[in-house]
């Protein structure tokens, strides 16, 4: 079994549940006692070879910040829990994935209420699920429910995982929806957080420029569209926007 869990030489990547025991002292004076608590984690080898570890929530779904450790740390500090993985975690993950697929299908078909229902189902199992949070926000914004969309925005803007490369498509779609609903302040705050993490993304710079343009801040928009073109000179959309901005500013002068 130990060999299966560490498939260095094969194409299979390490994936499973591991536990560690934490010792603590609780109580005071005469009631003081030492207790041991077993904590469960989901461990998965990433594509780049790093070993990722995440806590499991009460629904046995990996949740919260993804951290990394070495194989040596994993072996020395944790114990494998294959039964918990097969009986609890794997089915829970599959349920969340199936729910998300159904939700995204409803959203693509324009059934925003059904999509909302399914995204909420996913979030009831895993409240920190980023795909579901994006999807719920998109459902609200698609219907013009700006207050609820703003609530989701406030959650997403502080979720580190929202800015990861694998969520880039979702990130972009949500930003566009904020802009199309004229939620310019939120869109700019959202993009600025991403910009702080990645200053060499020409599409992000273009999106900021586009938002500033629609808000009527032509000077600021021109500044960002030029930055985008500095990174990618054959960026046609950015060039078109620059021409429009220059015309607007000449007309206003």
């Amino acid at each position, binding site marked *: 079994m130990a060999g299966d869990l560490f498939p260095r030489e094969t194409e299979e990547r390490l994936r499973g549940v591991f536990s560690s025991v934490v010792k603590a002292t609780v109580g005071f004076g005469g009631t003081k006692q030492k207790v041991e608590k077993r904590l469960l984690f989901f461990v998965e080898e990433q594509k780049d070879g790093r070993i990722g570890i995440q806590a499991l929530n009460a629904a046995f779904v990996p949740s919260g910040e993804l951290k990394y450790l070495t194989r040596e740390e994993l072996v020395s500090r944790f114990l494998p829990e294959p039964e918990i993985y097969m009986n609890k975690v794997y089915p829970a993950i599959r349920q969340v994935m199936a729910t998300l697929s159904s939700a995204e299908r*409803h959203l693509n078909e324009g*059934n925003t*209420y*059904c999509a909302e*229902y399914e995204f*909420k189902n996913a*979030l*009831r199992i895993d*409240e920190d699920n980023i795909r579901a949070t994006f999807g*719920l926000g998109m459902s609200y914004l698609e219907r013009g429910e700006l207050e*609820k969309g703003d*609530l*989701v925005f*406030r*959650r997403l803007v*502080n979720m580190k995982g929202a800015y990861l490369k694998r969520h880039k498509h979702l990130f972009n779609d949500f930003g566009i929806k904020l802009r199309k609903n004229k939620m310019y302040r939120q869109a700019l705050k959202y993009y600025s957080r991403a910009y702080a993490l990645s200053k060499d993304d020409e599409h992000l710079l273009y999106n900021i420029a586009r938002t500033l343009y629609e808000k009527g801040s032509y000077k600021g928009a021109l500044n960002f569209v030029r930055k985008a073109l500095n990174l990618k000179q054959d960026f046609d959309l950015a060039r078109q926007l620059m021409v429009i901005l220059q015309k607007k500013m000449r007309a206003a002068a």
Partner: protein
Amino acid sequence: MADQGKGTLFFGQFLLERGAVSQEALDDALQFQQEANHRIGELAVEKEYLQPHQVEKIFAEQKLRDEPFGVIALKFNFLKRAQLDDLLFSQAVNSTHLGEALLVRGHLSPEQFVEHLKAYNNMTKERQRELDALLRELPNRDVFAAVVKSLDRTFTRFTGRHARVNLLHTAPPAFSAGIGFVLDVALHGGGRVSCLVRLADDVGTVIAERLAASRDPQQHGEPTTTMDFCREFFEIMARYLGQALEDAGMAVAECSVGLCDEQCFTSVRPALEITTPAGPMFVAVSVAL
């Protein structure tokens, strides 16, 4: 469920009238919805953001201030902004619409839900267009809009469901029995907005029951009769009306509530018929600016 007429229907009533669900199925879904939805105070205690005594203190303050739970919690420094956002998000995630409840309980398939919801949305949009056109004909339409908004807000707060403008009466509505209140808003500079409300006795009873359900009956000084509860309901509405008129750019000096007899009501035109979760209500507005 009381017959609310064809002019303005809530989604549940709409489904009943289309024969999409039975009364039993609807009652079952409403019961499920009520049990599934968590109040924000409960969530705050579950997440250990607040202690029960803090929640009680906020509830007590809400009766005086008519402000949302979260706003008061922030003012008391019981919650940080990030915690409140987390609670609001959890509440949204864990809340269940009637349609979702019907889906979960198996009374509607997803396809049926989508079909009926589209039809309902089309109907309400059309109805809203007609009513907007009607309200545009009125002088002081901002005042009427503020009245409707404050009534809707009060009903949403105590019943979780909306009130809707149904019809506009240019002649006094036939309405013999019932109770009436006048919500008087004095404006700085001498102007006055008077909102006269007439409702049937059984509608008043439903309002009283809803407010009573949110009260501690042993608390000294709490209302006890139907009239007392109705007065409190309209006192809250009067405060909301004052806020709505301020939002519309009027300088509100004072809000008060008194009784309004039938004669007083029928002398003011036009009158709006409002469909509320408690039953129909008639509202006439007199403006002196």
